């Protein structure tokens, strides 16, 4: 269950359906440490959904998301062969098969049963003894990362900023490090102040979100995510809700971040940003990756006709 070359984030065969609406239809991608991946595509093509599947704000219908060598998506550990073998259901079926087909080898029966048994068959048998439970836990710990832990390492910046309205700027930034990383108040405040200094908003430390402009809110939202020292930052159209005169200040922070080596996945319509700092640009349309390339190739030599069409509309 381990990958050979360890990408920081690996997405494998991601599908997401909302009812009968097939929003993502098989997306696979790898994001290496230090990369800045820009995702573009028409509105409604599934960009936000893709991003939100990476930290499981949306639960994928099928597919896997890996953070380094640990699986983020919930694939039921009950489906693991070693666990199935321990279940009463399996043992009962095994005995039945054995008496029905005395000639068959244990191995072949086992192979057939494991393919056949579904997780539903095991559900009502979930509390079977210590050995079963400890094996489950072992399998889980070896292969999975708890979603809340994973999210500590995957920061997210939203289009609508989503600063905590009930908290001051400084509390917005220090809350998670204090409660989740058990940082002391002094350390967390010190770090928050350094980050605020870096974006030139130290004087707003005690302000409430309602007292800030959109650009200021978004820069603070970025800092709030950074305070957790994430391995990767996800941006969902971070400048789309801003007045035009504030777009620059947010993009400047993001560019600085990118140059400092932060791993970033950015959904945006800012083609200038993509050209300047992206290491790779991905074009998503109708829930699939239609094209993927270095920014130079991507913009100067687009292959897919839909991408050419899209670019001709946005690059006037």
């Amino acid at each position, binding site marked *: 269950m381990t990958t050979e070359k360890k990408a920081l984030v690996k997405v494998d065969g991601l599908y997401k359906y909302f009812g009968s609406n097939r929003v993502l239809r098989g997306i696979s991608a790898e994001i290496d440490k230090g990369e800045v991946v820009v995702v573009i595509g028409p509105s409604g093509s599934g960009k936000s959904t893709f991003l939100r599947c990476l*930290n499981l*704000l949306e*639960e994928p219908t099928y597919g896997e998301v890996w953070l380094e060598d640990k699986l983020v998506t*919930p694939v*039921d550990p009950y489906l693991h062969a070693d666990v199935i073998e321990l279940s009463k259901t399996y043992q009962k079926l095994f005995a039945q098969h054995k008496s029905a087909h005395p000639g068959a080898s244990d191995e072949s029966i086992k192979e057939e049963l494991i393919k056949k048994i579904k*997780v*539903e068959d095991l*559900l009502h048998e*979930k*509390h079977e003894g210590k050995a079963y439970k400890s094996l489950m836990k072992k399998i889980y710990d070896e292969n999975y990362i708890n979603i*809340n*832990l*994973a*999210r*500590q390492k*995957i*920061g*997210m910046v*939203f289009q*609508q900023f*989503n*600063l*905590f*309205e*009930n908290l*001051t700027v400084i509390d917005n930034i220090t*809350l*998670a490090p204090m*409660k*989740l990383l058990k940082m002391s108040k002094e350390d967390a405040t010190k770090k928050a102040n350094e980050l605020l200094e870096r974006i030139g908003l130290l004087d707003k430390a005690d302000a*409430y979100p*309602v*007292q800030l402009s959109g650009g200021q809110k978004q820069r603070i*939202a970025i800092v*709030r*995510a950074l305070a*957790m020292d994430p391995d990767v930052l996800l941006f969902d159209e971070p400048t789309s809700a801003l007045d035009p005169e504030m777009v620059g200040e947010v993009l400047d922070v993001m560019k600085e971040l990118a140059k400092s080596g932060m791993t970033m996945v950015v959904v945006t319509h800012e083609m200038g940003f993509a050209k300047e700092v992206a290491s790779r640009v991905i074009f998503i349309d109708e829930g699939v990756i239609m094209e993927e390339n270095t920014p130079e190739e991507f913009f100067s030599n687009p292959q897919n006709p839909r991408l050419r069409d899209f670019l001709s509309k946005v690059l006037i």
Partner: protein
Amino acid sequence: MKEWFADLTQQFELNFITGDRWTWLLEGFKMTLVITFFATLLGIAIGVVIATVRSSYDKNKESMKKKGGFGYRILSFFNGLCGLYLTVIRGTPVVVQLLIMYFIIFASSTNSTMVAVISFGINSGAYVAEIFRGGIMSVDKGQFEAGRSLGFNYIQTMRYIVIPQMFKIVLPMLCNEFIVLIKETSIAGYVGIRDLTKAGDLIRGRTFSAFMPLIAVALIYLAVVIIFTKLVKRLERRLRNSDH
């Protein structure tokens, strides 16, 4: 005119001064406030639990259902229990609930005040639960998602982010629930409690004049309700105007 006034004074003396009967009203009023206050607290406690169970069920049922197992069964069991509670409480009269509590469930208890607090608290809880549920839903979904995206679990996100914001909306409504309960507890006399209403009625029984004691009781309720309503309005305005 003069006669009428003299009669009124005499009636007043008879009903309130003689035998210090005004202290009955005072004691009754205190009882009303005590029952209302503790019933409100109990109602809030119950309401929080119910609202938490019901909204976490709504929020998590899809993902938990798929995994199945113990957690889901427990949560859906409690969710069903809460639904039953809401239906029963909202579908039966408060007096009947009180009588059942007093004569059946707590038949062996001699502490009727406590029985009344529990009964009104349980009743109030059903309405408070809806207040909280409305409050939770009124907080922008983005606040919740931002909390989860930082790595807070469901309960932490509710505790640090959603509930504090919800309170601003919910606090005035809880005060209104208190005001409603002040009036609703006037049936406590059914189980032998000397609340404000019962005190007025006792005076009436002693003096054989209904006008004075009952109008006095009505005026006291009215005054308290008007004063509390004013205070809530002011609180509401303060919360609305504050930046945070």
